């Protein structure tokens, strides 16, 4: 089942990083759509429910690579 989940993002300081993270998350296998809102400090991911845990691990890793201070709150 395709699910849409929203996560809070902490210490997201730079709008350009948010755009980079969004792009990185979109490239993860199984992600249908992703949006990193710098203004709302929120991450929205649309993906298959079965793979969600796996995707979130990869997403957290991708974000860490771009902006190590920023954290996705599960």
């Amino acid at each position, binding site marked *: 089942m395709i699910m849409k989940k*929203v996560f809070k993002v902490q210490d997201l*300081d730079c*709008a*350009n990083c948010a*755009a980079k993270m969004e792009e990185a998350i979109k490239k993860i296998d199984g992600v249908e759509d992703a949006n990193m809102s710098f203004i709302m400090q929120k991450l929205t991911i649309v993906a298959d429910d079965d793979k969600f845990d796996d995707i979130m691990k990869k997403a957290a890793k991708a974000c860490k690579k771009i902006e*190590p201070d920023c954290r996705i709150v599960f």
Partner: protein
Amino acid sequence: MSRRQKRMLIRIIVSFVLLVVAKCLSFDGWLGYASFLVPYAVIGWDIIWKALRNICHGQVFDENFLMAIATIGAFFTGECTEGVAVMLFYQVGELFQSYAVGRSRKSISSLMDIRPDYANIEVDGKLVQVDPDEVSIGDIIVIKPGEKIALDGVVVEGNSFVDTSALTGESVPRGVMPDSEVISGCINQSGLIKVRVTKEFGESTVAKILDLVENSSTKKAKAESFITKFAKYYTPCVVFGAVILGVLPPLISGGGWANWIHRALIFLVISCPCALVISVPLSFFGGIGGASKCGILVKGGNYLESLARTEIVVFDKTGTLTKGVFSVTAIHPEKYSEDELLEYAALAEIYSDHPIAASIKAAYGKSVDMRRVANPQELSGRGVCAEIDGRVVCAGNGRLMAEVGAKWHECHKVGTIVHVAIDGEYAGHIVISDELKDGAAEAVADLKNQGVSMLVMLTGDSKEVGESVGEKLNMDQVCTELLPVDKVQKVEELILAKSDKGKLVFTGDGINDAPVLSIADIGVAMGGIGSDAAIEASDVVIMDDNPRKIPLAIDIAKRTLRIVHQNIVFALSVKAAVLILGALGIANMWAAVFADVGVSVIAILNAIRALKVTNK
């Protein structure tokens, strides 16, 4: 200010003092370097640390790295004061930027401060506060004066006034009494009311609206995608330019390395695209926030962009331009008495939700014995049929009469005519008329002033009624006697007729026109509160039913777009100017830092203007 921001402020002050001290002492040789390195370390350690860490992660062109290289480069070219000062100025700018973004985030979310925190439920005669999520359908919630209504429902006890302004922008409070519907997010003003919940919290109006506004940033405007794409190429290009500038001229002329490298460092400072990347979505979000304050919900920045280019506005008549509250103004029976005709019509329409049905039932005024009605049928765009006391009664327009073979005739009165046929024989007609909404004429005039080139009204009503309304409102085109399918077709034709860049806006009340709402460039649903279908199918929802909100929405869209364009042009031209001046050796690193953080702060402040909407 958050704790992180406060800590940064302290670092800035300490570093500044140390810089002044180092400047005053003005040691020579390595001691001089060391005295400047202290304030530099205080202000810039985290930037250097992040730069190193990000290089390890393969992130080369990030702003930390660029700032680190630029300032360390300044040290190497002997400009110690500049190295520290640029870092200091950069941090001041970043601090200000994060403060400004935080502030605007707060002011936007305070606009949407409609989320109820709790609901009161009576348990054993005592009021208990519970999470709105835990309340189920059918529960009775108690709302005291001054409290927010947590869930949609129907009043069962008490009289009061509710303030709907947070949802509709309408400042006049609405009176409620037992049996009136109330929606979540409104504030109860005068008396205690008890409400029977009709929707779970997740399905209630307030949750829907919050969801819609919060998701609006996922629908990106073209300007926003353009900027993110631009940013992706901009930084590498400028860095590449810096390398060429630092290496090529001294190689050719054979010397002056320090001077050219210094100019290259200026390039690096300007190469961060943050000002653009923040200010564009922030402006759109501000516009959306400002609109929602007026009771106009816009589902995404892309729709604001389209609204600003509105060329054709198509209105559905009923419920949009007219009140949709019909009243029976004349009854012309044939062979029956007036009361009999009205009774048959009311019975036939008993199951219909159409506004016409409601007015006939209201005119009949007596309670109806449902058992007399069998086989009710609603015939889209034509009317209704039902068996009443075993007789087939059809009520509807001329087309329906022709279908059942009744010999009908026109009425001399202008209005909506409901013809009635009993057992295929014409029984007379009922005249119903509708009133224009307050503000409909002004809305049309405003739209024309805004440069909308064509205003079209579509209606399922008869030619006379439609045309008389269209004439009163000064419409450019009126199409009457349309079935829902015809409306879709008509709008498709109009879409083909407009220019490539112009956009078509369709405004309807969301009942029966969901297909049209979705094919128009922008579907505007009016009086959207409580109608889920309308909220889902449309792109813009006007919460109350004031037609003047349409020109207001276009105004807001135009203003927002203007701010977006200002920001793009301003940021790009300042950066371009400083790049050129830097390459020529005229601009120094101070100008470069201004072109980076200074510009982004100004762009953010400009973006916040999008929030402020003057409600006419």
